[in-house]
Protein backbone atom coordinates (compact mmCIF):
# COMPACT_ATOMS: atom_id res chain seq x y z
CA UNK A 1 0.00 0.00 0.00
CA UNK A 2 1.34 3.42 -0.93
CA UNK A 3 2.05 5.98 1.79
CA UNK A 4 -0.79 8.13 0.42
CA UNK A 5 -3.22 5.28 0.77
CA UNK A 6 -1.91 4.54 4.24
CA UNK A 7 -2.57 8.11 5.20
CA UNK A 8 -6.06 7.78 3.80
CA UNK A 9 -6.67 4.71 5.94
CA UNK A 10 -5.52 6.60 9.01
CA UNK A 11 -7.67 9.67 8.35
CA UNK A 12 -10.67 7.45 7.56
CA UNK A 13 -10.23 5.64 10.86
CA UNK A 14 -10.18 8.96 12.67
CA UNK A 15 -13.28 10.10 10.77
CA UNK A 16 -15.16 6.97 11.81
CA UNK A 17 -14.10 7.39 15.42
CA UNK A 18 -15.09 11.06 15.31
CA UNK A 19 -18.53 10.36 13.87
CA UNK A 20 -19.20 7.50 16.28
CA UNK A 21 -17.97 9.44 19.29
CA UNK A 22 -19.96 12.63 18.64
CA UNK A 23 -23.13 10.80 17.55
CA UNK A 24 -22.76 8.38 20.47
CA UNK A 25 -22.35 11.11 23.08
CA UNK A 26 -25.22 13.24 21.81
CA UNK A 27 -27.57 10.29 21.37
CA UNK A 28 -26.74 9.06 24.89
CA UNK A 29 -27.31 12.55 26.28
CA UNK A 30 -30.73 12.73 24.63
CA UNK A 31 -31.65 9.04 24.43
CA UNK A 32 -31.16 8.30 28.15
CA UNK A 33 -33.66 10.98 29.27
CA UNK A 34 -36.07 9.83 26.56
CA UNK A 35 -35.72 6.23 27.76
CA UNK A 36 -36.33 7.33 31.35
CA UNK A 37 -39.40 9.28 30.19
CA UNK A 38 -40.67 6.27 28.22
CA UNK A 39 -40.34 4.07 31.29
CA UNK A 40 -41.53 6.37 34.07
CA UNK A 41 -44.55 7.69 32.14
CA UNK A 42 -45.96 4.19 31.67
CA UNK A 43 -49.33 3.62 33.33
CA UNK A 44 -48.80 2.64 36.98
CA UNK A 45 -45.24 4.02 37.00
CA UNK A 46 -43.89 6.80 39.22
CA UNK A 47 -44.72 9.57 36.71
CA UNK A 48 -47.62 7.82 34.99
CA UNK A 49 -48.77 9.92 31.99
CA UNK A 50 -50.46 7.43 29.66
CA UNK A 51 -51.17 9.98 26.89
CA UNK A 52 -47.61 11.35 26.86
CA UNK A 53 -46.31 7.79 26.99
CA UNK A 54 -48.27 6.85 23.83
CA UNK A 55 -47.01 9.90 21.98
CA UNK A 56 -43.37 9.28 22.96
CA UNK A 57 -43.71 5.64 22.10
CA UNK A 58 -45.11 6.35 18.63
CA UNK A 59 -42.39 8.92 17.86
CA UNK A 60 -39.73 6.48 19.03
CA UNK A 61 -41.17 3.72 16.88
CA UNK A 62 -41.24 5.97 13.81
CA UNK A 63 -37.62 6.92 14.42
CA UNK A 64 -36.66 3.29 14.66
CA UNK A 65 -38.60 2.06 11.64
CA UNK A 66 -37.16 4.38 8.95
CA UNK A 67 -34.17 2.69 7.23
CA UNK A 68 -31.01 4.67 7.95
CA UNK A 69 -30.13 5.39 4.33
CA UNK A 70 -33.63 6.85 3.73
CA UNK A 71 -33.53 8.83 6.97
CA UNK A 72 -30.20 10.32 5.96
CA UNK A 73 -31.63 11.67 2.72
CA UNK A 74 -35.03 12.59 4.16
CA UNK A 75 -33.64 14.91 6.82
CA UNK A 76 -31.19 16.79 4.60
CA UNK A 77 -32.91 20.16 5.28
CA UNK A 78 -32.55 19.58 9.02
CA UNK A 79 -28.95 18.49 8.58
CA UNK A 80 -28.19 21.68 6.66
CA UNK A 81 -29.79 23.71 9.44
CA UNK A 82 -27.77 22.05 12.19
CA UNK A 83 -24.43 21.29 10.52
CA UNK A 84 -24.47 24.19 8.08
CA UNK A 85 -24.02 21.81 5.15
CA UNK A 86 -25.63 18.63 3.88
CA UNK A 87 -22.31 17.00 2.96
CA UNK A 88 -19.21 16.12 4.92
CA UNK A 89 -18.37 14.38 8.17
CA UNK A 90 -20.29 16.78 10.37
CA UNK A 91 -23.33 16.42 8.12
CA UNK A 92 -23.19 12.65 8.56
CA UNK A 93 -23.27 13.03 12.34
CA UNK A 94 -26.78 14.56 12.31
CA UNK A 95 -28.62 11.55 10.80
CA UNK A 96 -26.43 9.15 12.80
CA UNK A 97 -27.47 10.89 16.01
CA UNK A 98 -31.13 11.11 15.08
CA UNK A 99 -31.24 7.45 14.17
CA UNK A 100 -29.63 6.33 17.40
CA UNK A 101 -31.61 8.47 19.89
CA UNK A 102 -34.75 6.26 19.70
CA UNK A 103 -32.50 3.19 19.62
CA UNK A 104 -30.79 4.25 22.85
CA UNK A 105 -34.14 5.20 24.40
CA UNK A 106 -35.65 1.74 23.87
CA UNK A 107 -32.53 0.03 25.24
CA UNK A 108 -32.58 2.28 28.32
CA UNK A 109 -36.29 1.65 28.81
CA UNK A 110 -35.59 -2.08 28.69
CA UNK A 111 -32.73 -1.75 31.18
CA UNK A 112 -34.93 0.20 33.63
CA UNK A 113 -37.63 -2.42 33.26
CA UNK A 114 -35.21 -4.93 34.78
CA UNK A 115 -35.11 -3.01 38.08
CA UNK A 116 -37.38 -4.76 40.57
CA UNK A 117 -40.62 -2.90 41.35
CA UNK A 118 -39.99 -3.61 45.04
CA UNK A 119 -37.01 -1.23 45.00
CA UNK A 120 -39.13 1.62 43.70
CA UNK A 121 -41.75 0.82 46.30
CA UNK A 122 -39.15 0.81 49.07
CA UNK A 123 -37.90 4.23 47.93
CA UNK A 124 -41.46 5.56 47.86
CA UNK A 125 -41.98 4.27 51.39
CA UNK A 126 -38.87 6.26 52.39
CA UNK A 127 -40.45 9.41 51.04
CA UNK A 128 -38.37 9.71 47.86
CA UNK A 129 -39.47 12.14 45.15
CA UNK A 130 -39.89 10.77 41.61
CA UNK A 131 -36.66 12.55 40.61
CA UNK A 132 -34.81 10.93 43.53
CA UNK A 133 -36.19 7.55 42.55
CA UNK A 134 -34.80 8.06 39.04
CA UNK A 135 -31.36 9.29 40.09
CA UNK A 136 -30.81 7.23 43.26
CA UNK A 137 -32.61 4.00 42.46
CA UNK A 138 -33.52 3.40 38.82
CA UNK A 139 -30.39 4.64 37.03
CA UNK A 140 -27.81 3.20 39.47
CA UNK A 141 -29.62 -0.15 39.67
CA UNK A 142 -29.87 -0.34 35.87
CA UNK A 143 -26.25 0.73 35.33
CA UNK A 144 -25.12 -2.61 33.95
CA UNK A 145 -28.02 -2.73 31.49
CA UNK A 146 -27.45 0.88 30.48
CA UNK A 147 -23.75 0.36 29.74
CA UNK A 148 -24.66 -2.74 27.79
CA UNK A 149 -27.21 -0.74 25.78
CA UNK A 150 -24.70 2.00 25.05
CA UNK A 151 -22.14 -0.58 23.89
CA UNK A 152 -24.69 -2.01 21.47
CA UNK A 153 -25.38 1.54 20.27
CA UNK A 154 -21.70 2.28 19.62
CA UNK A 155 -21.29 -0.94 17.64
CA UNK A 156 -24.44 -0.13 15.64
CA UNK A 157 -23.10 3.38 15.00
CA UNK A 158 -19.84 1.96 13.63
CA UNK A 159 -21.82 -0.09 11.13
CA UNK A 160 -24.21 2.79 10.25
CA UNK A 161 -21.24 5.11 9.75
CA UNK A 162 -20.22 3.00 6.75
CA UNK A 163 -23.17 4.59 4.95
CA UNK A 164 -21.93 8.09 5.76
CA UNK A 165 -20.01 8.07 2.49
CA UNK A 166 -23.33 8.64 0.74
CA UNK A 167 -23.27 12.22 1.99
CA UNK A 168 -19.52 12.60 1.68
CA UNK A 169 -18.92 11.90 5.34
CA UNK A 170 -15.87 9.74 4.79
CA UNK A 171 -14.87 7.10 7.29
CA UNK A 172 -13.68 3.53 6.94
CA UNK A 173 -16.85 2.18 5.37
CA UNK A 174 -16.67 4.81 2.68
CA UNK A 175 -12.99 4.04 2.04
CA UNK A 176 -13.76 0.36 1.74
CA UNK A 177 -16.52 0.97 -0.78
CA UNK A 178 -14.64 3.49 -2.92
CA UNK A 179 -11.17 1.94 -2.99
CA UNK A 180 -11.88 -1.66 -2.12
CA UNK A 181 -15.17 -2.32 -3.91
CA UNK A 182 -15.32 0.22 -6.75
CA UNK A 183 -11.58 0.07 -7.60
CA UNK A 184 -11.17 -3.66 -6.98
CA UNK A 185 -8.41 -3.20 -4.40
CA UNK A 186 -8.67 -6.25 -2.15
CA UNK A 187 -5.89 -4.94 0.10
CA UNK A 188 -7.79 -1.76 1.02
CA UNK A 189 -10.96 -3.77 1.48
CA UNK A 190 -9.18 -6.20 3.81
CA UNK A 191 -7.49 -3.45 5.81
CA UNK A 192 -10.70 -1.47 6.38
CA UNK A 193 -12.64 -4.57 7.38
CA UNK A 194 -9.90 -5.65 9.79
CA UNK A 195 -9.79 -2.19 11.39
CA UNK A 196 -13.59 -2.19 11.76
CA UNK A 197 -13.54 -5.66 13.35
CA UNK A 198 -10.81 -4.61 15.79
CA UNK A 199 -12.77 -1.44 16.63
CA UNK A 200 -15.99 -3.34 17.33
CA UNK A 201 -14.10 -5.92 19.41
CA UNK A 202 -12.45 -3.16 21.39
CA UNK A 203 -15.66 -1.32 22.19
CA UNK A 204 -17.49 -4.56 23.06
CA UNK A 205 -14.71 -5.68 25.41
CA UNK A 206 -14.60 -2.26 27.05
CA UNK A 207 -18.39 -2.33 27.50
CA UNK A 208 -18.34 -5.85 28.93
CA UNK A 209 -15.59 -4.87 31.32
CA UNK A 210 -17.55 -1.84 32.56
CA UNK A 211 -20.70 -3.94 32.96
CA UNK A 212 -18.80 -6.48 35.04
CA UNK A 213 -17.30 -3.74 37.17
CA UNK A 214 -20.67 -2.15 37.88
CA UNK A 215 -22.44 -5.42 38.56
CA UNK A 216 -22.70 -6.40 42.23
CA UNK A 217 -25.54 -8.85 41.79
Amino acid at each position, binding site marked *: MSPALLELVLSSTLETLYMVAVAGLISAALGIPLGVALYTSRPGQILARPALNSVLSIITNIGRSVPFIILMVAIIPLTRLIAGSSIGTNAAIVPLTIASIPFVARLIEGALNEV*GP*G*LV*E*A*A*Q*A*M*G*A*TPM*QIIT*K*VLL*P*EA*RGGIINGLTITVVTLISYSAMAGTVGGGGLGDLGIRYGYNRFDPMVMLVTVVILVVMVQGFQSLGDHLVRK*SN*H*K
Partner: protein
Amino acid sequence: MITLKNVSKTYGSGDKAVVALKDASLTVPQGAITGVIGLSGAGKSTLIRCVNLLERPTAGSVVVDGQELTELDESALRSARHQIGMIFQHFNLLSSRTVFANVALPLELAGISKDEIKKRVEPLLELTGLSDKAGQYPAQLSGGQKQRVAIARALASRPKVLLCDEATSALDPQTTASILELLKDINTKLGLTILLITHEMEVVKSICDQVALISGGELVEVASVGDFFTAPQTRLGREFLNDFLELEPPRALVERLEATAGPHTHPVVRLAFSGDAVSTPLISRLARECQVDVSILQAKVESIQDRTLGLMIAELMGDSRQTQQALDYLESHDLKVEVLGHVTRTA
Protein backbone atom coordinates in the same frame (compact mmCIF):
# COMPACT_ATOMS: atom_id res chain seq x y z
CA MET B 1 -49.86 5.72 67.29
CA ILE B 2 -51.52 4.12 64.27
CA THR B 3 -55.28 4.36 63.91
CA LEU B 4 -57.10 2.90 60.94
CA LYS B 5 -60.77 3.78 60.86
CA ASN B 6 -63.18 2.03 58.48
CA VAL B 7 -60.48 1.65 55.85
CA SER B 8 -61.65 0.09 52.61
CA LYS B 9 -59.77 -0.61 49.41
CA THR B 10 -61.40 -1.64 46.17
CA TYR B 11 -59.46 -2.34 42.99
CA GLY B 12 -61.16 -1.55 39.69
CA SER B 13 -64.78 -0.54 39.44
CA GLY B 14 -68.18 -1.79 38.34
CA ASP B 15 -68.46 -5.51 37.67
CA LYS B 16 -64.71 -6.02 37.84
CA ALA B 17 -64.34 -4.40 41.25
CA VAL B 18 -62.31 -6.47 43.70
CA VAL B 19 -62.69 -5.64 47.36
CA ALA B 20 -59.31 -6.14 49.04
CA LEU B 21 -60.11 -4.48 52.34
CA LYS B 22 -63.51 -3.87 53.88
CA ASP B 23 -64.16 -1.45 56.71
CA ALA B 24 -61.00 -2.31 58.61
CA SER B 25 -60.49 -0.53 61.92
CA LEU B 26 -57.41 -1.08 64.02
CA THR B 27 -55.51 0.83 66.68
CA VAL B 28 -51.86 0.19 67.43
CA PRO B 29 -50.90 1.85 70.72
CA GLN B 30 -47.59 3.71 71.10
CA GLY B 31 -44.76 1.25 71.71
CA ALA B 32 -46.85 -1.84 71.03
CA ILE B 33 -46.22 -4.61 68.52
CA THR B 34 -49.33 -5.61 66.62
CA GLY B 35 -49.45 -8.57 64.28
CA VAL B 36 -51.97 -8.95 61.51
CA ILE B 37 -52.33 -12.60 60.63
CA GLY B 38 -54.23 -14.19 57.79
CA LEU B 39 -53.96 -16.58 54.88
CA SER B 40 -52.55 -15.41 51.57
CA GLY B 41 -55.02 -13.25 49.69
CA ALA B 42 -56.78 -12.23 52.90
CA GLY B 43 -55.81 -8.58 52.46
CA LYS B 44 -52.83 -8.38 54.82
CA SER B 45 -50.55 -6.71 52.31
CA THR B 46 -53.19 -4.20 51.28
CA LEU B 47 -53.80 -3.37 54.92
CA ILE B 48 -50.16 -2.62 55.74
CA ARG B 49 -49.67 -0.68 52.48
CA CYS B 50 -52.62 1.50 53.41
CA VAL B 51 -50.78 2.63 56.54
CA ASN B 52 -48.09 4.52 54.58
CA LEU B 53 -50.40 5.04 51.62
CA LEU B 54 -48.39 2.94 49.20
CA GLU B 55 -51.98 1.93 48.51
CA ARG B 56 -54.44 4.78 48.78
CA PRO B 57 -57.59 3.57 50.58
CA THR B 58 -60.86 4.05 48.70
CA ALA B 59 -62.51 5.06 51.96
CA GLY B 60 -61.66 5.55 55.60
CA SER B 61 -59.10 7.36 57.66
CA VAL B 62 -55.44 6.58 58.37
CA VAL B 63 -53.91 8.44 61.30
CA VAL B 64 -50.24 7.96 62.15
CA ASP B 65 -48.76 9.91 65.06
CA GLY B 66 -51.78 12.21 65.17
CA GLN B 67 -51.61 13.07 61.46
CA GLU B 68 -54.39 12.18 59.03
CA LEU B 69 -52.40 10.85 56.06
CA THR B 70 -55.20 10.63 53.50
CA GLU B 71 -55.58 14.42 53.52
CA LEU B 72 -51.92 15.25 52.89
CA ASP B 73 -50.60 16.44 49.53
CA GLU B 74 -47.71 14.64 47.82
CA SER B 75 -44.94 16.60 49.48
CA ALA B 76 -46.45 16.49 52.99
CA LEU B 77 -47.01 12.77 52.55
CA ARG B 78 -43.35 12.31 51.63
CA SER B 79 -42.23 13.97 54.84
CA ALA B 80 -44.79 11.97 56.84
CA ARG B 81 -43.26 8.82 55.35
CA HIS B 82 -39.91 9.70 56.92
CA GLN B 83 -41.66 8.88 60.20
CA ILE B 84 -42.76 5.46 58.96
CA GLY B 85 -40.08 2.85 58.31
CA MET B 86 -40.89 -0.23 56.30
CA ILE B 87 -39.25 -3.59 55.69
CA PHE B 88 -40.23 -6.18 53.12
CA GLN B 89 -40.32 -9.92 52.54
CA HIS B 90 -37.72 -9.69 49.78
CA PHE B 91 -35.63 -7.00 51.53
CA ASN B 92 -35.62 -4.62 48.52
CA LEU B 93 -32.02 -3.55 49.01
CA LEU B 94 -30.20 -1.71 46.22
CA SER B 95 -27.71 -4.17 44.73
CA SER B 96 -25.55 -1.31 43.44
CA ARG B 97 -24.97 0.08 46.93
CA THR B 98 -22.90 -1.23 49.81
CA VAL B 99 -24.48 -2.04 53.14
CA PHE B 100 -23.43 1.38 54.44
CA ALA B 101 -24.82 3.20 51.40
CA ASN B 102 -28.09 1.28 51.58
CA VAL B 103 -28.61 2.34 55.18
CA ALA B 104 -27.61 5.90 54.24
CA LEU B 105 -30.17 6.12 51.41
CA PRO B 106 -33.15 7.49 53.38
CA LEU B 107 -30.82 10.11 54.90
CA GLU B 108 -29.53 11.12 51.46
CA LEU B 109 -33.12 11.44 50.30
CA ALA B 110 -33.81 13.74 53.22
CA GLY B 111 -30.82 15.90 52.25
CA ILE B 112 -28.72 15.21 55.32
CA SER B 113 -25.00 16.05 55.17
CA LYS B 114 -22.34 13.38 54.62
CA ASP B 115 -20.79 13.80 58.07
CA GLU B 116 -24.15 13.56 59.78
CA ILE B 117 -25.03 10.48 57.70
CA LYS B 118 -21.83 8.77 58.86
CA LYS B 119 -22.64 9.61 62.46
CA ARG B 120 -26.10 8.14 62.18
CA VAL B 121 -25.41 5.06 60.06
CA GLU B 122 -22.59 3.64 62.18
CA PRO B 123 -24.63 3.17 65.38
CA LEU B 124 -27.39 1.57 63.32
CA LEU B 125 -24.97 -0.95 61.84
CA GLU B 126 -23.81 -1.70 65.35
CA LEU B 127 -27.38 -2.10 66.61
CA THR B 128 -28.16 -4.57 63.84
CA GLY B 129 -24.84 -6.40 64.16
CA LEU B 130 -23.50 -5.38 60.75
CA SER B 131 -20.50 -3.22 61.65
CA ASP B 132 -18.08 -5.58 59.89
CA LYS B 133 -20.25 -5.73 56.77
CA ALA B 134 -20.42 -1.98 56.02
CA GLY B 135 -18.41 -2.20 52.79
CA GLN B 136 -20.01 -5.33 51.40
CA TYR B 137 -22.70 -5.53 48.74
CA PRO B 138 -26.09 -7.17 49.40
CA ALA B 139 -25.23 -10.07 47.06
CA GLN B 140 -22.50 -11.09 49.49
CA LEU B 141 -24.91 -11.36 52.42
CA SER B 142 -27.23 -14.09 53.69
CA GLY B 143 -31.01 -13.56 53.86
CA GLY B 144 -30.94 -12.78 57.55
CA GLN B 145 -28.12 -10.25 57.10
CA LYS B 146 -30.01 -8.61 54.23
CA GLN B 147 -33.07 -8.20 56.44
CA ARG B 148 -30.84 -6.67 59.11
CA VAL B 149 -29.61 -4.14 56.57
CA ALA B 150 -33.23 -3.42 55.64
CA ILE B 151 -34.08 -2.90 59.32
CA ALA B 152 -31.13 -0.56 59.80
CA ARG B 153 -32.20 1.34 56.67
CA ALA B 154 -35.79 1.59 57.92
CA LEU B 155 -34.54 2.98 61.23
CA ALA B 156 -32.18 5.53 59.67
CA SER B 157 -34.73 8.32 59.43
CA ARG B 158 -35.61 7.75 63.10
CA PRO B 159 -39.20 6.73 62.45
CA LYS B 160 -41.85 6.39 65.13
CA VAL B 161 -43.47 3.45 63.40
CA LEU B 162 -42.07 0.39 61.68
CA LEU B 163 -44.13 -1.59 59.18
CA CYS B 164 -43.04 -5.16 58.53
CA ASP B 165 -44.46 -6.76 55.41
CA GLU B 166 -43.91 -10.52 55.84
CA ALA B 167 -40.41 -9.65 57.00
CA THR B 168 -39.48 -13.18 58.03
CA SER B 169 -41.40 -15.20 55.45
CA ALA B 170 -38.39 -15.71 53.21
CA LEU B 171 -36.13 -16.77 56.08
CA ASP B 172 -35.41 -20.12 57.72
CA PRO B 173 -36.74 -20.71 61.27
CA GLN B 174 -33.44 -19.98 63.00
CA THR B 175 -32.89 -16.73 61.12
CA THR B 176 -36.54 -15.82 61.68
CA ALA B 177 -35.99 -16.15 65.41
CA SER B 178 -32.95 -13.86 65.34
CA ILE B 179 -34.74 -11.22 63.26
CA LEU B 180 -37.75 -11.33 65.60
CA GLU B 181 -35.41 -10.93 68.54
CA LEU B 182 -33.89 -7.88 66.86
CA LEU B 183 -37.34 -6.39 66.23
CA LYS B 184 -38.32 -6.96 69.84
CA ASP B 185 -35.03 -5.43 70.91
CA ILE B 186 -35.52 -2.21 68.93
CA ASN B 187 -39.13 -2.08 70.08
CA THR B 188 -37.92 -2.04 73.67
CA LYS B 189 -34.79 0.11 73.19
CA LEU B 190 -36.28 2.74 70.92
CA GLY B 191 -39.91 2.54 71.97
CA LEU B 192 -40.75 1.93 68.33
CA THR B 193 -44.34 1.04 67.47
CA ILE B 194 -44.43 -1.96 65.14
CA LEU B 195 -47.17 -3.20 62.84
CA LEU B 196 -46.37 -6.45 61.12
CA ILE B 197 -48.21 -8.80 58.84
CA THR B 198 -47.50 -12.48 58.72
CA HIS B 199 -49.03 -15.86 58.03
CA GLU B 200 -47.03 -17.49 60.80
CA MET B 201 -48.53 -17.84 64.28
CA GLU B 202 -45.01 -18.32 65.60
CA VAL B 203 -44.23 -14.68 64.75
CA VAL B 204 -47.34 -13.44 66.57
CA LYS B 205 -46.64 -15.66 69.52
CA SER B 206 -43.04 -14.64 69.98
CA ILE B 207 -43.16 -10.86 69.75
CA CYS B 208 -46.67 -9.41 69.40
CA ASP B 209 -48.73 -7.74 72.10
CA GLN B 210 -51.85 -7.55 70.02
CA VAL B 211 -53.11 -9.71 67.19
CA ALA B 212 -55.61 -8.93 64.43
CA LEU B 213 -57.03 -11.76 62.38
CA ILE B 214 -57.88 -10.89 58.79
CA SER B 215 -60.02 -12.90 56.41
CA GLY B 216 -61.63 -11.90 53.12
CA GLY B 217 -60.48 -8.30 53.60
CA GLU B 218 -62.13 -7.96 56.99
CA LEU B 219 -60.58 -7.86 60.44
CA VAL B 220 -62.59 -10.61 62.10
CA GLU B 221 -60.91 -10.64 65.48
CA VAL B 222 -58.65 -8.19 67.31
CA ALA B 223 -57.40 -9.26 70.72
CA SER B 224 -54.43 -9.22 73.04
CA VAL B 225 -52.07 -12.09 72.21
CA GLY B 226 -52.67 -13.64 75.65
CA ASP B 227 -56.44 -13.68 75.14
CA PHE B 228 -56.20 -14.89 71.59
CA PHE B 229 -54.02 -17.88 72.39
CA THR B 230 -56.04 -18.96 75.39
CA ALA B 231 -59.55 -18.20 74.14
CA PRO B 232 -59.94 -17.22 70.49
CA GLN B 233 -63.41 -15.83 69.88
CA THR B 234 -63.99 -16.81 66.28
CA ARG B 235 -64.00 -20.10 64.40
CA LEU B 236 -61.15 -18.91 62.18
CA GLY B 237 -59.21 -17.95 65.30
CA ARG B 238 -59.64 -21.43 66.71
CA GLU B 239 -58.57 -22.99 63.40
CA PHE B 240 -55.41 -20.91 63.31
CA LEU B 241 -54.65 -21.81 66.89
CA ASN B 242 -55.24 -25.53 66.45
CA ASP B 243 -53.07 -25.61 63.34
CA PHE B 244 -50.37 -23.83 65.26
CA LEU B 245 -50.54 -25.95 68.40
CA GLU B 246 -50.75 -29.12 66.32
CA LEU B 247 -52.21 -31.06 69.20
CA GLU B 248 -54.02 -33.76 67.29
CA PRO B 249 -54.54 -37.24 68.77
CA PRO B 250 -52.10 -39.87 67.46
CA ARG B 251 -53.25 -41.69 64.34
CA ALA B 252 -53.39 -45.11 66.02
CA LEU B 253 -55.77 -43.66 68.60
CA VAL B 254 -57.96 -41.94 66.03
CA GLU B 255 -58.53 -45.27 64.30
CA ARG B 256 -59.83 -46.75 67.56
CA LEU B 257 -62.07 -43.77 68.43
CA GLU B 258 -65.81 -44.33 68.40
CA ALA B 259 -68.30 -41.51 68.33
CA THR B 260 -70.62 -42.86 71.01
CA ALA B 261 -69.97 -44.30 74.44
CA GLY B 262 -70.61 -48.03 74.90
CA PRO B 263 -70.72 -50.19 78.00
CA HIS B 264 -66.98 -50.88 77.86
CA THR B 265 -65.51 -47.61 76.66
CA HIS B 266 -63.38 -44.81 78.09
CA PRO B 267 -63.67 -41.18 77.00
CA VAL B 268 -60.70 -39.49 75.30
CA VAL B 269 -60.60 -35.78 76.03
CA ARG B 270 -58.65 -32.74 74.89
CA LEU B 271 -58.00 -30.34 77.76
CA ALA B 272 -56.88 -26.75 77.47
CA PHE B 273 -55.57 -25.09 80.63
CA SER B 274 -54.81 -21.47 81.08
CA GLY B 275 -54.33 -19.07 83.94
CA ASP B 276 -54.42 -20.61 87.41
CA ALA B 277 -55.38 -24.01 86.11
CA VAL B 278 -51.84 -24.50 84.76
CA SER B 279 -50.16 -24.32 88.13
CA THR B 280 -52.76 -26.41 90.00
CA PRO B 281 -52.02 -30.14 90.24
CA LEU B 282 -55.38 -30.94 88.66
CA ILE B 283 -54.63 -34.35 87.25
CA SER B 284 -53.53 -35.90 90.53
CA ARG B 285 -56.49 -34.36 92.31
CA LEU B 286 -58.76 -35.69 89.62
CA ALA B 287 -57.38 -39.17 90.17
CA ARG B 288 -57.88 -38.93 93.92
CA GLU B 289 -61.27 -37.27 94.05
CA CYS B 290 -63.04 -39.00 91.19
CA GLN B 291 -61.27 -42.32 91.41
CA VAL B 292 -60.32 -42.36 87.76
CA ASP B 293 -57.00 -43.19 86.21
CA VAL B 294 -55.69 -40.70 83.73
CA SER B 295 -53.53 -41.84 80.85
CA ILE B 296 -51.84 -38.88 79.18
CA LEU B 297 -51.53 -39.48 75.44
CA GLN B 298 -50.09 -36.13 74.43
CA ALA B 299 -49.34 -32.86 76.15
CA LYS B 300 -47.58 -29.56 75.66
CA VAL B 301 -47.18 -26.28 77.45
CA GLU B 302 -46.75 -23.00 75.60
CA SER B 303 -45.68 -19.71 77.11
CA ILE B 304 -47.35 -16.78 75.41
CA GLN B 305 -46.26 -13.39 76.69
CA ASP B 306 -46.97 -13.57 80.44
CA ARG B 307 -49.45 -16.41 80.11
CA THR B 308 -49.03 -20.13 80.12
CA LEU B 309 -51.19 -22.38 78.04
CA GLY B 310 -51.36 -26.13 78.67
CA LEU B 311 -52.83 -28.62 76.27
CA MET B 312 -53.36 -32.30 76.81
CA ILE B 313 -55.03 -35.29 75.23
CA ALA B 314 -55.86 -37.93 77.81
CA GLU B 315 -57.88 -41.07 78.30
CA LEU B 316 -60.02 -41.16 81.47
CA MET B 317 -60.20 -44.67 82.85
CA GLY B 318 -63.04 -45.61 85.15
CA ASP B 319 -66.68 -46.66 84.99
CA SER B 320 -69.18 -44.37 83.33
CA ARG B 321 -70.27 -42.70 86.59
CA GLN B 322 -66.68 -41.96 87.61
CA THR B 323 -65.68 -40.60 84.23
CA GLN B 324 -68.75 -38.34 84.06
CA GLN B 325 -67.86 -37.05 87.50
CA ALA B 326 -64.33 -36.42 86.30
CA LEU B 327 -65.54 -34.43 83.31
CA ASP B 328 -67.75 -32.29 85.56
CA TYR B 329 -64.84 -31.76 87.92
CA LEU B 330 -62.59 -30.56 85.09
CA GLU B 331 -65.19 -28.20 83.70
CA SER B 332 -65.81 -26.69 87.11
CA HIS B 333 -62.11 -25.76 87.22
CA ASP B 334 -62.18 -23.49 84.19
CA LEU B 335 -60.68 -25.95 81.83
CA LYS B 336 -61.78 -26.24 78.27
CA VAL B 337 -62.81 -29.84 77.89
CA GLU B 338 -63.56 -31.42 74.56
CA VAL B 339 -64.51 -35.10 74.29
CA LEU B 340 -62.86 -36.40 71.15
CA GLY B 341 -64.52 -39.84 71.29
CA HIS B 342 -64.45 -43.11 73.13
CA VAL B 343 -62.14 -46.09 73.03
CA THR B 344 -62.95 -49.62 73.99
CA ARG B 345 -61.17 -50.77 77.15
CA THR B 346 -58.15 -52.84 76.40
CA ALA B 347 -57.63 -54.16 79.88
